[in-house]
């Protein structure tokens, strides 16, 4: 009787050790996040002043700021939303509510899944070849926004489709039974009901657009700019590129500025996500079935 008992005890002990190992692995992620945030705060908070927000970049770290980058990021994300949000929602609605299950919708579906996995720098090469060179938009905020819109389009489409799919069929049936046309059903009933999920997709997409660096460097966004864009055809820089520029310099004073820039960038992303959660909850509360 002793032997089976000890075998069982050993098996249990192995199980306990494995559970601890899993827990340790999980805490690595949490730990890294904390270390990352503490390091950024320690380095970046002292130089995060009002002047830092309102100054143009400079060769002298004590005079350098993120004014051009912040305004450039706003331009970029605004224009990207203008292009990507209507297109993404329209494409999602068509695929989910209109398209017959034929070869065309299948091809588009597979294509979108593949596009979501294309590295962002490849989109930069696309933007360079098409928007900057072929269409002659040059290194403008318009080229950047169009490139970024194509990059985030799959995110909006995929999230819109998932949100539409989650709307109960009974809502559609009820609307059809009242004599509504397909478009009345889609735009008057289904889409409003799916709004929380659609909004989440939009915010995810715009967060991605704010944080992306590589494709904008590829289309030639400038790293040093001492003026603000006045039209979509003006050159621009964005916050992540400014951070990249400061990180790449050898002087520690610029590394501090990079950390300050990162704090601003993370705060922008955080407030965007808080807004998303607020809107989602509000939309959800007004919609009950």
């Amino acid at each position, binding site marked *: 009787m002793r032997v089976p008992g000890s075998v069982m005890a050993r098996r249990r002990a192995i199980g306990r050790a494995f*559970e601890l190992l899993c827990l340790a692995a999980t805490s690595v992620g*949490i730990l890294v996040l904390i270390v990352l945030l503490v390091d950024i705060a320690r380095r970046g908070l002292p130089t995060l002043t009002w002047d830092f927000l309102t100054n143009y970049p400079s060769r002298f770290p004590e005079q350098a700021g993120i004014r051009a980058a912040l305004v450039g990021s706003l331009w970029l994300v605004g224009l990207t939303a203008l292009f990507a949000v209507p297109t993404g929602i329209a494409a999602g609605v068509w695929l989910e509510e209109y398209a017959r299950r034929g070869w065309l919708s299948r091809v*588009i579906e597979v294509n979108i899944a593949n596009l979501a996995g294309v590295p962002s*720098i490849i989109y930069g090469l696309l933007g360079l070849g098409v928007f900057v060179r072929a269409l002659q938009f040059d290194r403008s905020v318009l080229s950047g926004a169009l490139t970024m819109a194509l990059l985030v389009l799959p995110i909006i489409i995929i999230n819109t489709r998932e949100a539409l799919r989650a709307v109960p069929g009974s809502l559609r049936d009820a609307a059809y039974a009242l004599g509504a046309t397909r478009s009345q059903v889609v735009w008057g009933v289904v889409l409003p009901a799916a709004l929380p999920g659609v909004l989440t997709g939009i915010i995810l997409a715009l967060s991605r657009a704010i944080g992306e660096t590589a494709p904008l460097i590829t289309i030639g966004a400038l790293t040093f700019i001492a003026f603000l864009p006045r039209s979509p055809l003006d050159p621009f820089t964005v916050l992540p590129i400014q951070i990249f520029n400061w990180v790449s310099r050898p002087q520690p004073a610029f590394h501090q500025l990079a*950390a300050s820039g990162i704090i601003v960038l993370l705060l922008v992303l955080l407030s965007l996500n808080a807004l998303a959660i607020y809107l989602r909850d509000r939309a959800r509360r007004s919609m009950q079935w």
Partner: protein
Amino acid sequence: MARGTIVAPRERATRGRSLRPPLGRRVREWLIEAPLALAALVSIGTTVGIIGVLVFETYEFFQVVPLWQFLTDTQWTPLFSEKHFGIIVLLSATVLTTVGAIAVALPLGLLVAIYLAEYASPAARRIIKPVLEILAGIPTVVYGYFALLFVTPILQAILPQTAVFNGASAAIVMGIMILPMISSMGEDALAAVPRELREGAYALGATRFEVATQVVVPAASSGLMAACILAVSRAIGETMIVTIAAGQSPTLTLNPLVPIETMTAYIVQVSLGDTPYGSLEYKTIFAVGTTLFLLTLLLNIASQWLLARFREVYQ
């Protein structure tokens, strides 16, 4: 698709003429649908655009540089006067950082996935999942900062021969970046394994550890494999971390402690300089881009194929 059980009006209407919607209404419906379809076609246009741009510029590149030289040369010096175009130099750097990142992310990600799917209480999941989502949402330039200014100094303290720019710190941080991807896709795969399999194993007297590692993980293996392949694809295409932390010196080496240059870092390096449009240097970034695109496309397709097979097994 969760469409209702009632037949949609258009199909029903065709049976009786009197029920067919009036012409004006049908035109209006079509006017609404056409732009929507057009929007969906933008995605096809994107793919055509990507392939078109890459093929066009890469073709021009190979008019000057023979494909054989591109594949076999062991130096990469397009920006020097004596030019060499050996993609293997950039490719080896990409492989080195990718393998390093997977070596970090795969074991950790799998353990996290097993913990979330098999062990964690609902309360623990409510804390862990948002944290992982935050990790996944941090811009890569921030990870680059972290690799260069936090991880590299630590590596230098442990191994003094470590250079300021090195593959190791980029790989470690990239591993942290793709961890959430493996853990969340992995958790989905594990959770999709039917409960009957677990119950069967418990009924035979298996412990929780034995059920998790000998029943659930093998049953979910193609889903886990898909997650892993997608993570590799993500690491190959990652740009800012390797550009900032691994350096911009194209060297053919497997030493993780010296500066190297990945394919993506090379594209950034050329883009930051003032390379004249149409020059050979300008075209190199498209040739490198094509290599990168083909690699990631193959991996993505493999991952999707595995996932589809996995879904088939359990439905």
